């Protein structure tokens, strides 16, 4: 597969300078270098600028409802566990409406990769606060002087706490690392999450490229780093200020949800023959 195989003849409609371009490019690179079969790949997105990514990529795609990419992706994966299933959406999509689904998808460790475009703002609805907006952030719905008074959700901490088996944070300005993390996440058997820090150039004038650039620091260069140690990962996840660690926080292997189901041990549900199913036994049980 070549990179251009993924392209569709549509020009993305993101604002000039939007972080989504970087994520888009990185995903295409990661998929190319993994040589993914585009016909065996499903990209499930939510709603928002982030989720438009599905409109521009020539795989099988399902653009769902706001916050619902993960349950749709779960249905896809259970119907055909041979597919590579990637879910994508924003911080509002995934941590607002989608939070319940995020928690439960993580704890069931189904083999889905989830990329969260985190720009700490609602972009497509033009500048409201998001579940990951910093305290004090001034947005359309949290005006000055107070700004946002709710504690932001730390996606990495959240993912670690609810049982995701691959947890990373990336910065779109560090493309090499982002591509590598994406490759690892897609290859990881189980629920893999990357919190991708991504500026919104139109509505978030605080968390800019420069802001992230100054803070993002490769986690593997930090003292005591051990991606096999959940307790350590949680400590690193708490760092959000002068230093924000980027890289793989934690990875472990435990049985995936679909591997725990004997029904899926032979062939995908979608490939089972359904003509002439014999229900005589079920009826006889009711005599």
């Amino acid at each position: 597969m070549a990179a251009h195989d993924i392209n569709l003849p549509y020009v993305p409609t993101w604002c000039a300078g939007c972080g989504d371009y970087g994520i888009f490019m990185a995903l295409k690179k990661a998929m190319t270098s993994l040589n993914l079969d585009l016909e065996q790949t499903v990209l499930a997105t939510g709603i928002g600028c982030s989720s438009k990514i599905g409109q521009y990529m020539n795989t099988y795609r399902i653009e769902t409802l706001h916050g619902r990419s993960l349950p749709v992706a779960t249905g896809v994966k259970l119907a055909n566990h041979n597919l590579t299933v990637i879910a994508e959406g924003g911080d509002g999509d995934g941590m607002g409406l989608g939070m319940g689904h995020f928690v439960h998808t993580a704890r069931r460790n189904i083999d889905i990769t989830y990329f969260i475009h985190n720009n700490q703002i609602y972009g497509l609805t033009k500048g409201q606060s998001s579940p990951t907006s910093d305290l004090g952030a001034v947005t359309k719905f949290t005006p000055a002087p107070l700004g946002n008074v709710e504690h932001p959700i730390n996606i990495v901490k959240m993912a670690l706490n609810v049982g995701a088996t691959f947890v990373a944070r990336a910065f779109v300005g560090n493309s090499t690392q982002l591509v590598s993390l994406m490759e690892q996440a897609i290859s990881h058997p189980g629920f893999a999450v990357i919190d991708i820090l991504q500026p919104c150039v139109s509505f978030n004038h605080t968390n800019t490229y420069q802001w992230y650039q100054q803070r993002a620091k490769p986690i593997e260069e930090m003292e005591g780093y051990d991606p096999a140690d959940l307790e350590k990962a949680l400590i690193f996840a708490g760092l959000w200020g002068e230093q924000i660690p980027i890289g793989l926080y934690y990875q472990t292997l435990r049985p995936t949800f679909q591997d725990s189901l004997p029904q899926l041990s032979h062939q995908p549900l979608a490939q089972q023959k359904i003509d002439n199913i014999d229900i005589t036994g079920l009826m006889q049980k009711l005599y």
Partner: protein
Amino acid sequence: MNKSYYTCLFGGEAGYGVMSAGSIIAKGANRSGLWSFVVNEYPSLIQGGLNSCLVRLSNKPITAYEETIDFLGLFSQQAFDCYADKLSPSAIVLYDAATTKIDATKVPEGTLLCPVALASSIPKGGAKIMINSAMLGAFAAFTGYPKQVLIDVMKTEFHNEKVQQENIQILDEVYHLVMETLSSSKVFPFPFEPKAEPKMLINGNEAISIAAIKAGCKFSAGYPMTPGSSVLSYLADHGAEYGLVFKQAEDEIAAINMLIGASFAGTRAIGSTSGGGFALMVEALGFAAQAEIPLVMVNAQRGGPSTGLPTRTAQADLNFVVHASQGEFPRIVLAPGDIEECFYETFRIFNLADTYQVPCIILTDKFLADSSVSQLPFATDSLTIERGKLFEAKEQPYLRYENTPDGVSARAIPGQVGGRHIATSYTHGEDGFYSSGNKEYALNEPMVTINSMDKLYNKLPAMEKEIPAIKFYGPPNADLTIIAWGSTKGAILEAMELAASQNISVNFLQILYISPFPITATELVLQQAKKTLLIEGNKTAQLGSILRANTGHKTDYTFLKYNSRAFLPSEILAKIKEVLF
């Protein structure tokens, strides 16, 4: 005793095996040439409260029940207080004086009051659920229902040998105890045929579940909500055997989105819930419609609004289900009226969902979902799977939403070579693409919108032609035409029989599929109708408003019941007489 029906009711707190006593009697009857109808009533409680199980038996098929009790088996005081006034003349009341005080002034004259020491017949350390075996022993002795038939059912119901033996022993002891004191009062009116062809004892949810399995459904997701849950638990129980996965989701929103995902990926899928859960699913209902992904949902109605009456029946979600979601789109709403329709129409609706790529809703209610009736095995030879238009690799370039004369375009399934596309919740063009920021799209947006809406509605003519939307019963030129939907069917049919025996001429238009509304078929019936009577289990005559909107017909009379219980044939007959005379 010359009766056409014999009705037993067992009542007591949850935990005494009230319902299993009833089902053992019904199953025994089913295996011996009789027909049964079993109605369970229970509050939303785990322990205590009043559970009741009514078993109506006959030597001919039964489609409804009446609350005229010939045998009342009491496990608690509350059961007596609640059912004493429903005893038929010369009924038997069986009770344990240790737990229940009988006020003889509250029962009809001629009632036979029979105290039996039920609780004390249980050996030390035995579970209180064994009391139902004592009850069954006494029941057989008093009525003449063959004891051996009950024992034979117990042998197949109790899989644990020790439990089976203990229960049979208790039954036997109490049977003999009662027989010793009894002169002769064998009142059970029907002969048993030991070699009769067996029948199933099956409820609506079981019929739907078995149909789904037969239809090749391989995935189900849901969140428990009475009375929809038992479809889910049935599929969970039998999933491994049939290669079906049931996923309990974190909420109903996740459940329906999982179903949509699975269906998009090529697997037939079904969900089941009640009105409150369906309310949460509405968001995704429109998504399935917009993305043209087949979807099959069961809504087993209970009382409302809101949490309403979790364990009681109602027919009040019709308008909601027919109109649910923002925007507009065609959908199929099926309202089965009996077990056969639950089975055969559920099988059919999987084919319809695939053929038309629209959301399909099976609208039942607690009464139909939960009441068990005798049913001969379903005939399955002529049931064939139809998957609708499927993409084949040679058709390039592939447009998932290609405009076709019948509005249906070929589906490609992820994994298929050459079938890559986007399925989206946005209004989209033939290739599925949406973006008002895209210059070409923006220029054409009004036309794309019209075309995509017309595409959805272009499916209607074929749908209307194919869907067997109404059923008609009774003489064509009757004095009165009853119009109804769903589970009222059984009571109406029995009321019509009663009416016919009194030379009252009534016919019945059953609206089997309510959306798309069968305008032509209904109008043909209405043109012949002399007077019309609408019967529904809701406050506001919901089918009436749909009927009026579609045909302009306002029924002459309405009979609405919304007290959380099902219609009885006797009250429908009374209404028929009131209307006609």
